[in-house]
Each structure stands twice: as structure tokens, then as C-alpha cells.
């Protein structure tokens, strides 16, 4: 692993809680690592588990999915579906040898700017520990 390796994290945030929470972190000028890039979706339930696979395949070293706290989903239940799907995916990914440190899920509400920072820090730190993702990365393979 190179000394100055910076993990590349793709995050999927629900519009109502986590994206708003990340915005709040901005408004509050809370600083956190720049390794994370956010894709906004309306609900964590929108995140197709295969996005995670796809992100790793296409160059992400880590993936984060964040939604509203259970019971607080703007769409009532979306985060429950997300939780079940991601729980299953995590088991599967680990089984095929993907480091669980590359994959995180969190509940961050619209008011938890500070929690967002902590979540990002943890995600980046763990992805850094896991090192560059080489597993089934598309480019590794004669592309």
C-alpha cells in the first residue's frame, strides 16, 4: 500500500435526513476528510444493493450508505428495507472476500451534522486500513 494512499469513497445519502445532515455539517463548518463523494438519492431505500458492488467494481475503495434513523424515514419504511438489503449484501460480500471495512451504513438525521463528520471519519479511516480495493476492480483486469 502506498504511503499517501487516499481511499476513494462513494456515499449514497437520503435526501431528507443524511443529505440534510451533511449539509448541516457544512453550514456548521464542521471539517472532515475530502475522500467522500456523495450521490443524493431520495431515500436510502432507493439504494440498490448492487450499487455497492458496482461502485467497488468501478473504482471505489469504500462505500457508505446513510439514511434516516429507524422510524424516522421520510417515506416511513425505506430505511428498513435498506437495512435488510445491506445486511444481506454485507454478509455476501464478506463471504466472497471483500473486507467489511469497505462497506458502511449509518443513520444520520438532518440535525446530526457532527455525527455525519464522525461517520465520514470512520468510513475513511477503515477504508484506509483496508487499502486500495483490488479485488474485482474492473481496471485491474485487462480493460
Amino acid at each position, binding site marked *: 500500500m502506498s504511503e499517501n494512499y487516499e481511499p476513494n469513497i462513494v456515499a449514497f445519502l437520503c435526501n431528507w435526513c443524511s443529505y440534510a445532515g451533511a449539509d448541516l455539517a457544512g453550514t456548521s463548518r464542521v471539517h472532515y476528510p475530502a475522500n467522500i463523494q456523495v450521490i443524493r438519492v431520495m431515500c436510502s431505500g432507493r439504494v440498490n444493493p448492487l450499487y455497492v458492488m458496482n461502485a467497488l467494481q468501478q*473504482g471505489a475503495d469504500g462505500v457508505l450508505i446513510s439514511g434516516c434513523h429507524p422510524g424516522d424515514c421520510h417515506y416511513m419504511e425505506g430505511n428498513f428495507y435498506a437495512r435488510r438489503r445491506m445486511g444481506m449484501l454485507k454478509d455476501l460480500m464478506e463471504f466472497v472476500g471483500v473486507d467489511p471495512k469497505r462497506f458502511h451504513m449509518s443513520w444520520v438525521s438532518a440535525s446530526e451534522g457532527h455525527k455525519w463528520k464522525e461517520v465520514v471519519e470512520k468510513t475513511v479511516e477503515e477504508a484506509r486500513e483496508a487499502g486500495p480495493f483490488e479485488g474485482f476492480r474492473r481496471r485491474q483486469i485487462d480493460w
Partner: protein
Amino acid sequence: MSAMLLNKEKWPEFIGKLTGKNLWAPKLEGEAMRFAPVAEDEVPELTDGNTRIPPKNIVFPQTETMYRFQLGDFEMKEPELKEEMILLGIRPCDARAMVIVDKLFSWDVDDPYYLKRRELVTLVGLACSEPGLNCFCTSLGGGPASTEGLDLLMVDLGDSYLLETITPKGEALVSEVSELLIEADTEKIKMKKKMVSESEGKIKRSVDHKGIPEGLPGLWEDPLWKSVSASCLGCGTCTYLCPTCHCFDIQDETEGFEARRCRMWDSCMFEEYTLHTSGHNPRPTRRERTRNRINHKYNYYVDKFDVIACVGCGRCINLCPVNIDIVEILRQVKEAL
């Protein structure tokens, strides 16, 4: 054409001389053999049986990059093919299959990718002493020691290999290892003949294709197609493992804003193979697809190139998950004629 003898004691030395030249040989991986590069210091053992995946991927890779480009840009970068290779231990049926496929790839236009790879490869065949359960090469003009398509044929005579050169490529190869070889005497030639005829005798399955190419059009609507295809899963096993199947699809694959155009094996047994953009599918069910597979091999190809596009390697029979057996289908076709 010359016949030389390689004592098996010199086998490692023989291999040693070739490994630097991009040598490939059958290798047991897991439960099945497949062609794989031979590493330095590695001495492959040639055993009975054939590779599960035919060596067609050596000249016709399952996925081949045609060129690369940037989205929104017209500049193309083509790959360069230049490395020569030696394919050691290819079975006569598979070599013969390449000759059959050559006709297609050099027919109306010359396919640069395929023909270049063909030019770069030297095929060193290995005659079969123990044919497989479902081999029927002898029914189709091949045989355990058929030389068609080979540059060099090796025949296992117990303590030595008989090496018969067939083409200048084969001769060139032999000349590089000539110090390991001795001239084969008539005794050895006789031994070979005996081995070959014994081997032919072990082939239990056969196809009587007389009249089939001409007769197939008449059976277009025959109920047999429905019954033989009813259990078909529509998977690509038979075609992907067939040494003469050569269909491909062309796809653009992107990653970010970069892209490549590539071609990859396709199978006429897949539903999308003939699916039109409109949603219409001229071969809507597995019946039409199965009928096409048989017709392509035993009728259309004969029409166009005067040869049956089947070499009797038996792979499709061995590996069909639902026991669809081409020999059995052809028997029914023959019966229906």
C-alpha cells in the same frame, strides 16, 4: 513431412526449449482441463481426455477488445497483436475445428483479429489413444490421429512420442529441437497405425449424416424439434464449449467517460441472440433455436463451405445439464427423413 521420435526421457528438455516461446498446454484445473500457459520450470504431463473448454479461445478469445475511445471523441486506439504462441497437446478434433472456422473468418471479409491470431499460433497435436465416451469424430471425417489443421502431430507410443511434421511451421518447430529427436523407423510407424486403429475401435458413438444436410430443410416444421428442445434450458453450454461455434456479439463498454468496443462470444441458444429492437424475435422459442443450431452445423455451413460444422468432440453431450444429445437428435433427424 517427416516422422521423428522423442524419447520421453527427453520430454522435460523438450519442454524446456519451448517454454520461452509462449507455450500453452492442457492443465488440470480443479476437475477439468483447460489450456493454460506453461510456466518456466513447469513440465506439463499430457494425459488422456480433452480440455473442457476447447482451444478456440486461443484464436477467438471469449472477449476481445477491438478498439478503445473516449466518450464524445472519435479517436480510436487499436490493440496490437504480435506475440507468437505454441499450443501443445491440442486434439485432432479441435484442430480440425479451427480449419472449419477459418473458412468463415476469411470468407467475405478477412477478420483481422482472428486471422492474425491464427497466423501467430503453432498447433502441436496429440493423437487420442483413449477417446471419450461421447466422441464421434470418425463419423465426420476426423479421427484420433487426424492431422487436418495441425502443424505437428504427436503420437504417444508408450516410452516415446512420434512427431510428424505437417506444415512448415511444424518443421520449423522440430528443427529447433532437432538435437533431442531421432528419425522414426518403420516399426514405430506401424506402432502408430496400430494405436490409431485400436483407438478408432474404442469410439462407440456414431452419426450417419448421409442425406442430413440435404434433408434438413424438409424437416423445418417437423414435430421432432419441439420434443428435442422441450427440456432445453436455453443456456450457452453447448455452443460455448463447441470448438466450431464462432458467433460473437459486439458491445461498447464504458467506464466513466472511457470506453472500448469489444466482441464476445454469443450463443444462438440465448433468447437475445436474435431479438430485435422492436421486441420481435424471429426465433422466439427454444424449438427454433435448437433447430437453428442443428441446421447451422449440418445444413447451412455445408451449403456455404461444403463441410459439416461439427467435429464430433462430444463436449455438448458431456456437459448438457439436461441430457440433450446431438447424436440422439441426429438419429431422430435421420429417422424422420
